[in-house]
Protein backbone atom coordinates (compact mmCIF):
# COMPACT_ATOMS: atom_id res chain seq x y z
CA UNK A 1 0.00 0.00 0.00
CA UNK A 2 2.72 2.37 1.04
CA UNK A 3 4.60 1.62 -2.13
CA UNK A 4 1.60 2.48 -4.30
CA UNK A 5 1.15 5.74 -2.48
CA UNK A 6 4.73 6.73 -3.15
CA UNK A 7 4.39 5.78 -6.77
CA UNK A 8 1.31 7.94 -7.09
CA UNK A 9 3.13 10.82 -5.50
CA UNK A 10 5.98 10.31 -7.90
CA UNK A 11 3.68 10.46 -10.88
CA UNK A 12 2.07 13.61 -9.54
CA UNK A 13 5.47 15.18 -9.01
CA UNK A 14 6.57 14.30 -12.51
CA UNK A 15 3.40 15.79 -13.91
CA UNK A 16 3.89 18.94 -11.88
CA UNK A 17 7.46 19.17 -13.11
CA UNK A 18 6.38 18.73 -16.71
CA UNK A 19 3.77 21.39 -16.27
CA UNK A 20 6.37 23.65 -14.68
CA UNK A 21 8.90 23.24 -17.42
CA UNK A 22 6.39 24.13 -20.08
CA UNK A 23 5.15 27.01 -17.98
CA UNK A 24 8.52 28.72 -18.09
CA UNK A 25 9.30 29.70 -21.65
CA UNK A 26 12.84 30.87 -20.87
CA UNK A 27 13.84 27.39 -19.71
CA UNK A 28 16.56 26.73 -22.29
CA UNK A 29 17.16 23.19 -23.44
CA UNK A 30 15.04 21.74 -20.70
CA UNK A 31 11.77 21.76 -22.52
CA UNK A 32 10.88 20.57 -25.98
CA UNK A 33 7.68 22.59 -25.68
CA UNK A 34 7.21 25.75 -27.76
CA UNK A 35 7.79 29.15 -26.21
CA UNK A 36 4.15 30.01 -26.64
CA UNK A 37 3.10 29.91 -22.98
CA UNK A 38 1.14 27.59 -20.73
CA UNK A 39 0.10 24.23 -22.08
CA UNK A 40 -2.65 22.74 -20.02
CA UNK A 41 -4.29 19.34 -19.82
CA UNK A 42 -7.36 18.97 -21.99
CA UNK A 43 -10.24 16.50 -21.66
CA UNK A 44 -9.87 13.38 -23.78
CA UNK A 45 -11.47 13.75 -27.22
CA UNK A 46 -11.87 17.53 -27.07
CA UNK A 47 -10.87 19.70 -30.02
CA UNK A 48 -8.13 21.21 -27.87
CA UNK A 49 -6.64 17.78 -27.10
CA UNK A 50 -6.80 16.75 -30.75
CA UNK A 51 -5.10 19.94 -31.93
CA UNK A 52 -2.46 19.71 -29.22
CA UNK A 53 -1.79 16.11 -30.19
CA UNK A 54 -1.52 17.01 -33.89
CA UNK A 55 0.77 19.96 -33.09
CA UNK A 56 -0.75 21.95 -35.94
CA UNK A 57 -3.85 24.09 -36.51
CA UNK A 58 -5.51 25.54 -39.60
CA UNK A 59 -6.72 29.12 -39.21
CA UNK A 60 -8.88 31.07 -41.62
CA UNK A 61 -8.10 34.79 -41.84
CA UNK A 62 -8.24 37.65 -44.32
CA UNK A 63 -5.23 38.13 -46.57
CA UNK A 64 -6.24 41.58 -47.81
CA UNK A 65 -7.20 43.58 -44.73
CA UNK A 66 -4.35 45.88 -43.67
CA UNK A 67 -3.60 45.86 -39.92
CA UNK A 68 -5.86 42.81 -39.27
CA UNK A 69 -4.92 40.14 -41.77
CA UNK A 70 -2.65 41.14 -44.63
CA UNK A 71 -0.42 38.69 -46.45
CA UNK A 72 2.59 39.76 -48.48
CA UNK A 73 3.35 37.60 -51.53
CA UNK A 74 5.74 35.59 -49.36
CA UNK A 75 5.57 34.80 -45.67
CA UNK A 76 2.79 34.51 -43.14
CA UNK A 77 -0.04 37.01 -42.86
CA UNK A 78 0.29 39.86 -40.37
CA UNK A 79 -2.16 41.83 -38.27
CA UNK A 80 -4.29 41.86 -35.14
CA UNK A 81 -6.40 38.83 -36.16
CA UNK A 82 -3.21 36.91 -36.88
CA UNK A 83 -1.77 37.84 -33.45
CA UNK A 84 -4.95 36.70 -31.70
CA UNK A 85 -4.95 33.37 -33.58
CA UNK A 86 -1.24 32.86 -32.87
CA UNK A 87 -1.82 33.48 -29.18
CA UNK A 88 -4.66 30.91 -29.05
CA UNK A 89 -2.51 28.38 -30.93
CA UNK A 90 0.30 29.03 -28.45
CA UNK A 91 -1.97 27.97 -25.60
CA UNK A 92 -2.37 24.64 -27.42
CA UNK A 93 1.40 24.29 -27.62
CA UNK A 94 1.45 25.04 -31.33
CA UNK A 95 4.31 27.23 -32.57
CA UNK A 96 3.65 29.99 -35.14
CA UNK A 97 5.44 28.02 -37.87
CA UNK A 98 3.03 25.12 -37.35
CA UNK A 99 -0.04 27.26 -37.99
CA UNK A 100 -1.48 26.78 -41.45
CA UNK A 101 -3.10 29.99 -42.73
CA UNK A 102 -6.01 29.76 -45.15
CA UNK A 103 -7.52 32.79 -46.80
CA UNK A 104 -11.16 33.24 -45.90
CA UNK A 105 -13.21 35.93 -47.60
CA UNK A 106 -16.59 37.10 -46.39
CA UNK A 107 -18.50 34.58 -48.50
CA UNK A 108 -16.66 31.36 -47.55
CA UNK A 109 -16.18 31.66 -43.80
CA UNK A 110 -19.21 29.61 -42.75
CA UNK A 111 -18.67 26.78 -45.27
CA UNK A 112 -14.97 26.52 -44.36
CA UNK A 113 -15.86 26.13 -40.67
CA UNK A 114 -18.68 23.69 -41.35
CA UNK A 115 -16.72 21.34 -43.61
CA UNK A 116 -13.58 21.42 -41.44
CA UNK A 117 -11.34 23.17 -43.97
CA UNK A 118 -10.29 25.39 -41.07
CA UNK A 119 -10.28 24.75 -37.30
CA UNK A 120 -11.23 28.34 -36.52
CA UNK A 121 -11.78 31.64 -38.30
CA UNK A 122 -10.28 34.92 -37.06
CA UNK A 123 -11.08 37.26 -39.94
CA UNK A 124 -12.77 40.59 -39.02
CA UNK A 125 -15.77 38.33 -38.52
CA UNK A 126 -18.81 40.22 -37.20
CA UNK A 127 -20.98 38.25 -34.77
CA UNK A 128 -24.63 38.39 -35.77
CA UNK A 129 -27.76 36.30 -35.29
CA UNK A 130 -27.91 35.01 -38.87
CA UNK A 131 -24.37 33.65 -38.64
CA UNK A 132 -24.98 32.21 -35.16
CA UNK A 133 -27.38 29.74 -36.81
CA UNK A 134 -24.49 28.28 -38.82
CA UNK A 135 -21.40 28.60 -36.64
CA UNK A 136 -20.47 29.41 -33.05
CA UNK A 137 -18.60 32.52 -31.98
CA UNK A 138 -16.06 32.92 -29.22
CA UNK A 139 -15.41 36.49 -28.21
CA UNK A 140 -15.92 39.26 -29.08
CA UNK A 141 -12.23 40.15 -28.96
CA UNK A 142 -12.77 43.56 -30.58
CA UNK A 143 -15.66 45.97 -31.14
CA UNK A 144 -15.32 47.57 -34.56
CA UNK A 145 -17.75 50.25 -35.66
CA UNK A 146 -18.48 53.12 -37.98
CA UNK A 147 -15.94 55.92 -37.67
CA UNK A 148 -14.81 59.06 -39.49
CA UNK A 149 -11.64 59.70 -41.50
CA UNK A 150 -10.36 63.21 -42.28
CA UNK A 151 -7.19 64.84 -43.52
CA UNK A 152 -4.51 64.82 -40.83
CA UNK A 153 -4.55 68.63 -40.90
CA UNK A 154 -8.26 68.79 -40.01
CA UNK A 155 -9.01 69.90 -36.45
CA UNK A 156 -12.70 70.88 -36.41
CA UNK A 157 -14.20 67.38 -36.79
CA UNK A 158 -13.85 65.19 -33.71
CA UNK A 159 -16.96 63.03 -33.87
CA UNK A 160 -20.28 62.50 -35.63
CA UNK A 161 -21.82 65.49 -33.82
CA UNK A 162 -19.49 67.81 -35.74
CA UNK A 163 -20.85 66.70 -39.12
CA UNK A 164 -23.56 69.37 -39.54
CA UNK A 165 -22.94 71.24 -42.79
CA UNK A 166 -19.90 69.11 -43.65
CA UNK A 167 -19.49 67.12 -46.87
CA UNK A 168 -19.48 63.44 -45.98
CA UNK A 169 -18.41 60.76 -48.46
CA UNK A 170 -19.58 57.15 -48.40
CA UNK A 171 -21.04 54.45 -50.67
CA UNK A 172 -24.55 54.56 -52.14
CA UNK A 173 -26.83 52.06 -50.40
CA UNK A 174 -24.33 51.17 -47.66
CA UNK A 175 -25.25 50.84 -43.97
CA UNK A 176 -22.86 53.66 -42.90
CA UNK A 177 -24.47 56.03 -45.42
CA UNK A 178 -27.95 55.13 -44.18
CA UNK A 179 -26.84 55.68 -40.60
CA UNK A 180 -25.58 59.20 -41.39
CA UNK A 181 -28.72 60.06 -43.34
CA UNK A 182 -30.95 58.90 -40.49
CA UNK A 183 -29.07 60.10 -37.40
CA UNK A 184 -27.08 63.10 -38.68
CA UNK A 185 -29.42 64.66 -41.28
CA UNK A 186 -27.51 67.99 -41.31
CA UNK A 187 -24.50 66.36 -42.96
CA UNK A 188 -24.23 66.69 -46.74
CA UNK A 189 -23.73 63.22 -48.25
CA UNK A 190 -21.72 62.54 -51.42
CA UNK A 191 -22.22 58.91 -52.40
CA UNK A 192 -19.98 56.98 -54.78
CA UNK A 193 -19.90 53.35 -55.89
CA UNK A 194 -16.81 52.39 -53.81
CA UNK A 195 -15.02 53.72 -50.74
CA UNK A 196 -11.79 54.16 -52.68
CA UNK A 197 -13.63 56.76 -54.84
CA UNK A 198 -13.85 58.93 -51.71
CA UNK A 199 -10.08 59.18 -51.22
CA UNK A 200 -9.24 61.59 -54.05
CA UNK A 201 -12.10 64.00 -53.19
CA UNK A 202 -10.92 63.93 -49.56
CA UNK A 203 -7.39 64.87 -50.66
CA UNK A 204 -8.77 67.66 -52.85
CA UNK A 205 -11.03 69.05 -50.15
CA UNK A 206 -14.25 68.30 -52.07
CA UNK A 207 -15.39 66.27 -49.06
CA UNK A 208 -14.41 66.81 -45.42
CA UNK A 209 -15.02 63.31 -44.09
CA UNK A 210 -15.10 59.70 -45.30
CA UNK A 211 -17.18 57.33 -43.20
CA UNK A 212 -17.44 53.54 -42.95
CA UNK A 213 -16.18 50.85 -40.52
CA UNK A 214 -13.08 52.01 -38.64
CA UNK A 215 -11.21 48.88 -39.70
CA UNK A 216 -11.55 49.73 -43.40
CA UNK A 217 -10.64 53.37 -42.71
CA UNK A 218 -7.58 52.29 -40.72
CA UNK A 219 -6.39 50.40 -43.81
CA UNK A 220 -6.56 53.59 -45.88
CA UNK A 221 -4.79 55.54 -43.14
CA UNK A 222 -2.01 52.94 -43.02
CA UNK A 223 -1.49 53.34 -46.78
CA UNK A 224 -1.84 57.14 -46.86
CA UNK A 225 1.63 58.02 -45.55
CA UNK A 226 0.29 60.26 -42.80
CA UNK A 227 -2.12 62.14 -45.03
CA UNK A 228 -5.32 60.82 -43.38
CA UNK A 229 -6.37 60.07 -39.81
CA UNK A 230 -9.28 58.31 -38.08
CA UNK A 231 -10.99 60.67 -35.64
CA UNK A 232 -12.92 59.84 -32.49
CA UNK A 233 -14.41 56.60 -31.25
CA UNK A 234 -16.52 54.24 -33.35
CA UNK A 235 -20.19 55.25 -32.99
CA UNK A 236 -21.77 51.91 -33.94
CA UNK A 237 -20.86 48.40 -32.73
CA UNK A 238 -19.67 45.51 -34.86
CA UNK A 239 -18.41 42.80 -32.48
CA UNK A 240 -15.65 40.67 -34.02
CA UNK A 241 -15.69 37.02 -32.93
CA UNK A 242 -13.77 33.81 -33.55
CA UNK A 243 -15.80 31.33 -35.56
CA UNK A 244 -15.76 27.63 -34.67
CA UNK A 245 -18.07 24.68 -35.41
CA UNK A 246 -21.65 25.23 -34.26
CA UNK A 247 -21.77 22.36 -31.73
CA UNK A 248 -18.19 22.68 -30.40
CA UNK A 249 -19.11 24.48 -27.19
CA UNK A 250 -16.05 23.18 -25.28
CA UNK A 251 -13.64 24.68 -27.80
CA UNK A 252 -15.60 27.95 -27.89
CA UNK A 253 -15.64 28.30 -24.10
CA UNK A 254 -11.94 27.43 -23.91
CA UNK A 255 -11.14 30.17 -26.46
CA UNK A 256 -13.24 32.54 -24.35
CA UNK A 257 -11.08 31.62 -21.33
CA UNK A 258 -7.92 32.28 -23.34
CA UNK A 259 -9.26 35.65 -24.50
CA UNK A 260 -10.22 36.70 -20.98
CA UNK A 261 -6.78 35.70 -19.74
CA UNK A 262 -5.18 37.79 -22.51
CA UNK A 263 -7.35 40.77 -21.56
CA UNK A 264 -6.11 40.63 -17.97
CA UNK A 265 -2.44 39.77 -18.55
CA UNK A 266 -1.92 42.52 -21.13
CA UNK A 267 -1.08 40.30 -24.10
CA UNK A 268 -4.28 41.35 -25.89
CA UNK A 269 -3.37 45.05 -25.65
CA UNK A 270 0.22 44.30 -26.65
CA UNK A 271 -1.03 42.49 -29.77
CA UNK A 272 -3.26 45.48 -30.55
CA UNK A 273 -0.50 48.04 -30.08
CA UNK A 274 1.84 46.10 -32.36
CA UNK A 275 -0.71 45.97 -35.22
CA UNK A 276 -3.94 47.96 -35.57
CA UNK A 277 -2.91 50.14 -32.61
CA UNK A 278 -0.34 51.86 -34.82
CA UNK A 279 -3.26 53.64 -36.52
CA UNK A 280 -6.35 53.23 -34.31
CA UNK A 281 -6.72 54.35 -30.69
CA UNK A 282 -6.57 51.66 -27.98
CA UNK A 283 -10.00 50.04 -27.62
CA UNK A 284 -11.82 49.34 -24.36
CA UNK A 285 -11.68 45.70 -23.27
CA UNK A 286 -14.73 43.93 -24.73
CA UNK A 287 -17.01 41.72 -22.65
CA UNK A 288 -16.98 38.06 -23.66
CA UNK A 289 -20.42 36.80 -24.65
CA UNK A 290 -20.89 33.19 -23.44
CA UNK A 291 -24.23 32.75 -25.13
CA UNK A 292 -26.23 29.51 -25.33
CA UNK A 293 -26.58 27.74 -28.66
CA UNK A 294 -30.22 27.03 -29.34
Amino acid at each position, binding site marked *: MKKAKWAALGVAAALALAACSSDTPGDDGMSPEPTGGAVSEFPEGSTMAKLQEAGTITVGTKFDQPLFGLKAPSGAPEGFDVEIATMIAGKLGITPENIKWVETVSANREPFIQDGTVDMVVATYTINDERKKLVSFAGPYYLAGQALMTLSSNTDINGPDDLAGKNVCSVEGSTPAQNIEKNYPDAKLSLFAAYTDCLEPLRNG*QVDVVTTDNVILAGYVAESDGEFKVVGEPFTEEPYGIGVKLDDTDFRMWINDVLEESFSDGSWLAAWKATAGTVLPDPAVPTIDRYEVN
Partner: protein
Amino acid sequence: MEAFIDNFGLIWGGFLATVSLTAVSGLIAFAWGTVLAAFRVSPVGPLRTFGTLYVEIVRNTPLTLMFFFWVFIVPTFGIVFPLGFWPAVVALSLYTSAFVCEALRAGINSVGVGQAEAARSVGFTFSQTLGHVVLPQAWRSAIPPLISVLIALTKNTSVAAGFAFTELVAVSQRLINANPVDGFFIFVGIAAMYLVITIPLGILAGRLERRVAFAR
Protein backbone atom coordinates in the same frame (compact mmCIF):
# COMPACT_ATOMS: atom_id res chain seq x y z
CA MET B 1 -44.25 46.80 -55.05
CA GLU B 2 -44.69 48.07 -51.50
CA ALA B 3 -41.11 49.29 -51.30
CA PHE B 4 -41.67 51.32 -54.46
CA ILE B 5 -44.80 53.00 -53.07
CA ASP B 6 -43.39 53.51 -49.55
CA ASN B 7 -40.31 55.21 -50.92
CA PHE B 8 -42.02 57.24 -53.60
CA GLY B 9 -40.83 60.48 -51.99
CA LEU B 10 -37.23 59.37 -52.44
CA ILE B 11 -37.90 58.20 -56.00
CA TRP B 12 -39.63 61.48 -56.83
CA GLY B 13 -36.56 63.34 -55.57
CA GLY B 14 -34.38 61.20 -57.85
CA PHE B 15 -36.75 61.85 -60.75
CA LEU B 16 -36.55 65.64 -60.25
CA ALA B 17 -32.75 65.37 -60.02
CA THR B 18 -32.65 63.50 -63.34
CA VAL B 19 -35.01 66.00 -64.99
CA SER B 20 -33.06 69.05 -63.80
CA LEU B 21 -29.72 67.53 -64.78
CA THR B 22 -31.15 66.79 -68.25
CA ALA B 23 -32.65 70.28 -68.61
CA VAL B 24 -29.60 72.28 -67.50
CA SER B 25 -27.08 70.15 -69.42
CA GLY B 26 -29.39 70.14 -72.45
CA LEU B 27 -29.65 73.93 -72.57
CA ILE B 28 -25.89 74.43 -72.25
CA ALA B 29 -25.21 71.67 -74.79
CA PHE B 30 -27.61 73.26 -77.33
CA ALA B 31 -26.04 76.70 -76.96
CA TRP B 32 -22.43 75.48 -77.11
CA GLY B 33 -23.26 72.96 -79.86
CA THR B 34 -24.71 75.76 -82.02
CA VAL B 35 -21.54 77.80 -81.56
CA LEU B 36 -19.46 74.75 -82.50
CA ALA B 37 -21.54 74.17 -85.64
CA ALA B 38 -21.02 77.81 -86.63
CA PHE B 39 -17.27 77.30 -86.10
CA ARG B 40 -17.26 74.26 -88.35
CA VAL B 41 -18.88 76.07 -91.29
CA SER B 42 -17.16 79.43 -90.72
CA PRO B 43 -14.74 80.98 -93.22
CA VAL B 44 -12.07 81.32 -90.46
CA GLY B 45 -9.60 78.40 -90.68
CA PRO B 46 -8.50 78.15 -87.02
CA LEU B 47 -12.14 78.10 -85.85
CA ARG B 48 -12.95 75.29 -88.29
CA THR B 49 -9.95 73.33 -87.04
CA PHE B 50 -10.93 73.89 -83.42
CA GLY B 51 -14.52 72.77 -84.10
CA THR B 52 -13.38 69.65 -85.91
CA LEU B 53 -10.83 68.69 -83.22
CA TYR B 54 -13.34 69.27 -80.42
CA VAL B 55 -16.05 67.16 -82.02
CA GLU B 56 -13.70 64.32 -82.97
CA ILE B 57 -12.11 64.13 -79.51
CA VAL B 58 -15.25 64.51 -77.42
CA ARG B 59 -17.51 62.38 -79.60
CA ASN B 60 -15.04 59.49 -79.57
CA THR B 61 -14.36 59.46 -75.82
CA PRO B 62 -16.50 57.45 -73.36
CA LEU B 63 -18.81 59.57 -71.22
CA THR B 64 -17.61 57.78 -68.07
CA LEU B 65 -14.08 59.03 -68.79
CA MET B 66 -15.43 62.58 -69.13
CA PHE B 67 -17.04 62.25 -65.71
CA PHE B 68 -13.87 60.78 -64.29
CA PHE B 69 -11.90 63.71 -65.68
CA TRP B 70 -14.15 66.38 -64.18
CA VAL B 71 -14.72 64.66 -60.84
CA PHE B 72 -11.29 63.19 -60.05
CA ILE B 73 -8.64 64.71 -62.35
CA VAL B 74 -9.49 68.40 -62.67
CA PRO B 75 -9.58 68.96 -58.86
CA THR B 76 -5.98 67.73 -58.60
CA PHE B 77 -5.00 70.84 -60.63
CA GLY B 78 -6.56 73.01 -57.97
CA ILE B 79 -9.86 73.65 -59.79
CA VAL B 80 -12.24 72.36 -57.16
CA PHE B 81 -16.00 72.52 -57.46
CA PRO B 82 -18.48 70.92 -55.12
CA LEU B 83 -19.27 67.29 -55.89
CA GLY B 84 -22.63 66.27 -57.28
CA PHE B 85 -24.64 68.43 -59.68
CA TRP B 86 -22.17 70.78 -61.33
CA PRO B 87 -19.41 68.37 -62.36
CA ALA B 88 -22.19 66.24 -63.87
CA VAL B 89 -23.57 69.26 -65.78
CA VAL B 90 -20.12 70.12 -67.12
CA ALA B 91 -19.34 66.55 -68.23
CA LEU B 92 -22.75 65.96 -69.81
CA SER B 93 -23.07 69.30 -71.62
CA LEU B 94 -19.53 69.24 -73.04
CA TYR B 95 -20.12 65.66 -74.22
CA THR B 96 -23.59 66.26 -75.66
CA SER B 97 -22.59 69.51 -77.42
CA ALA B 98 -20.46 67.52 -79.89
CA PHE B 99 -23.54 65.56 -80.96
CA VAL B 100 -25.68 68.71 -81.11
CA CYS B 101 -23.03 70.27 -83.34
CA GLU B 102 -23.06 67.36 -85.75
CA ALA B 103 -26.88 67.21 -85.91
CA LEU B 104 -26.98 70.93 -86.67
CA ARG B 105 -24.20 70.72 -89.23
CA ALA B 106 -26.16 68.03 -91.05
CA GLY B 107 -29.13 70.44 -91.00
CA ILE B 108 -26.97 73.27 -92.35
CA ASN B 109 -25.68 71.06 -95.15
CA SER B 110 -29.26 70.24 -96.10
CA VAL B 111 -29.92 73.92 -96.87
CA GLY B 112 -29.30 74.54 -100.55
CA VAL B 113 -26.05 76.31 -101.43
CA GLY B 114 -28.12 78.78 -103.46
CA GLN B 115 -29.61 80.19 -100.25
CA ALA B 116 -26.23 81.22 -98.87
CA GLU B 117 -25.10 82.52 -102.27
CA ALA B 118 -28.26 84.62 -102.59
CA ALA B 119 -27.73 86.06 -99.09
CA ARG B 120 -24.13 86.93 -99.88
CA SER B 121 -25.12 88.54 -103.18
CA VAL B 122 -27.38 91.00 -101.37
CA GLY B 123 -24.48 91.95 -99.09
CA PHE B 124 -25.09 89.79 -95.97
CA THR B 125 -22.05 89.10 -93.82
CA PHE B 126 -21.23 85.53 -92.75
CA SER B 127 -23.03 85.89 -89.38
CA GLN B 128 -26.06 87.49 -91.04
CA THR B 129 -26.21 84.74 -93.64
CA LEU B 130 -25.97 82.07 -90.97
CA GLY B 131 -28.29 83.73 -88.44
CA HIS B 132 -31.05 85.01 -90.75
CA VAL B 133 -31.04 82.63 -93.70
CA VAL B 134 -29.31 79.29 -93.15
CA LEU B 135 -29.88 78.41 -89.47
CA PRO B 136 -33.66 79.03 -89.42
CA GLN B 137 -33.99 76.52 -92.26
CA ALA B 138 -31.35 74.18 -90.83
CA TRP B 139 -33.22 73.86 -87.51
CA ARG B 140 -36.18 72.30 -89.26
CA SER B 141 -34.38 69.31 -90.65
CA ALA B 142 -32.18 69.10 -87.56
CA ILE B 143 -35.11 68.67 -85.14
CA PRO B 144 -35.50 64.87 -85.35
CA PRO B 145 -31.80 64.14 -84.77
CA LEU B 146 -31.67 66.82 -82.06
CA ILE B 147 -34.52 65.16 -80.17
CA SER B 148 -32.63 61.86 -80.43
CA VAL B 149 -29.64 63.61 -78.89
CA LEU B 150 -31.85 64.91 -76.07
CA ILE B 151 -33.27 61.43 -75.41
CA ALA B 152 -29.72 60.02 -75.34
CA LEU B 153 -28.79 62.79 -72.89
CA THR B 154 -31.67 61.85 -70.58
CA LYS B 155 -30.41 58.28 -70.38
CA ASN B 156 -26.77 59.37 -70.13
CA THR B 157 -27.53 61.26 -66.90
CA SER B 158 -27.56 57.82 -65.22
CA VAL B 159 -23.74 57.80 -65.40
CA ALA B 160 -23.81 60.54 -62.74
CA ALA B 161 -25.06 57.91 -60.23
CA GLY B 162 -21.49 56.62 -59.96
CA PHE B 163 -20.09 60.12 -59.41
CA ALA B 164 -21.73 61.34 -56.24
CA PHE B 165 -24.98 62.65 -57.74
CA THR B 166 -28.14 61.12 -56.32
CA GLU B 167 -30.50 60.76 -59.29
CA LEU B 168 -32.89 57.96 -60.32
CA VAL B 169 -30.32 55.18 -60.72
CA ALA B 170 -28.56 56.07 -57.45
CA VAL B 171 -31.93 56.00 -55.69
CA SER B 172 -32.71 52.60 -57.20
CA GLN B 173 -29.36 51.22 -55.97
CA ARG B 174 -30.13 52.49 -52.49
CA LEU B 175 -33.64 50.99 -52.49
CA ILE B 176 -32.62 47.63 -53.93
CA ASN B 177 -29.88 47.36 -51.30
CA ALA B 178 -32.38 48.07 -48.54
CA ASN B 179 -35.20 45.90 -49.98
CA PRO B 180 -33.56 43.02 -51.86
CA VAL B 181 -36.86 41.13 -52.06
CA ASP B 182 -38.53 43.93 -54.01
CA GLY B 183 -35.59 44.38 -56.39
CA PHE B 184 -37.62 43.51 -59.49
CA PHE B 185 -40.41 46.03 -58.88
CA ILE B 186 -38.00 48.81 -57.99
CA PHE B 187 -36.02 48.09 -61.14
CA VAL B 188 -39.11 48.15 -63.38
CA GLY B 189 -40.45 51.24 -61.61
CA ILE B 190 -37.22 53.18 -62.11
CA ALA B 191 -37.12 52.19 -65.79
CA ALA B 192 -40.70 53.46 -66.13
CA MET B 193 -39.67 56.82 -64.65
CA TYR B 194 -37.19 57.23 -67.53
CA LEU B 195 -39.96 56.48 -70.02
CA VAL B 196 -42.02 59.26 -68.40
CA ILE B 197 -39.30 61.66 -69.57
CA THR B 198 -38.30 60.19 -72.91
CA ILE B 199 -41.62 59.14 -74.48
CA PRO B 200 -43.11 62.68 -74.34
CA LEU B 201 -39.88 63.92 -75.93
CA GLY B 202 -40.43 61.51 -78.81
CA ILE B 203 -44.05 62.65 -79.23
CA LEU B 204 -42.91 66.27 -79.13
CA ALA B 205 -40.41 65.51 -81.87
CA GLY B 206 -43.16 64.11 -84.08
CA ARG B 207 -45.40 67.15 -83.54
CA LEU B 208 -42.61 69.67 -84.18
CA GLU B 209 -41.53 67.84 -87.28
CA ARG B 210 -45.03 68.05 -88.75
CA ARG B 211 -45.45 71.69 -87.80
CA VAL B 212 -42.19 72.92 -89.31
CA ALA B 213 -42.28 70.64 -92.34
CA PHE B 214 -41.93 72.43 -95.63
CA ALA B 215 -41.93 71.36 -99.22
CA ARG B 216 -38.61 71.30 -100.99
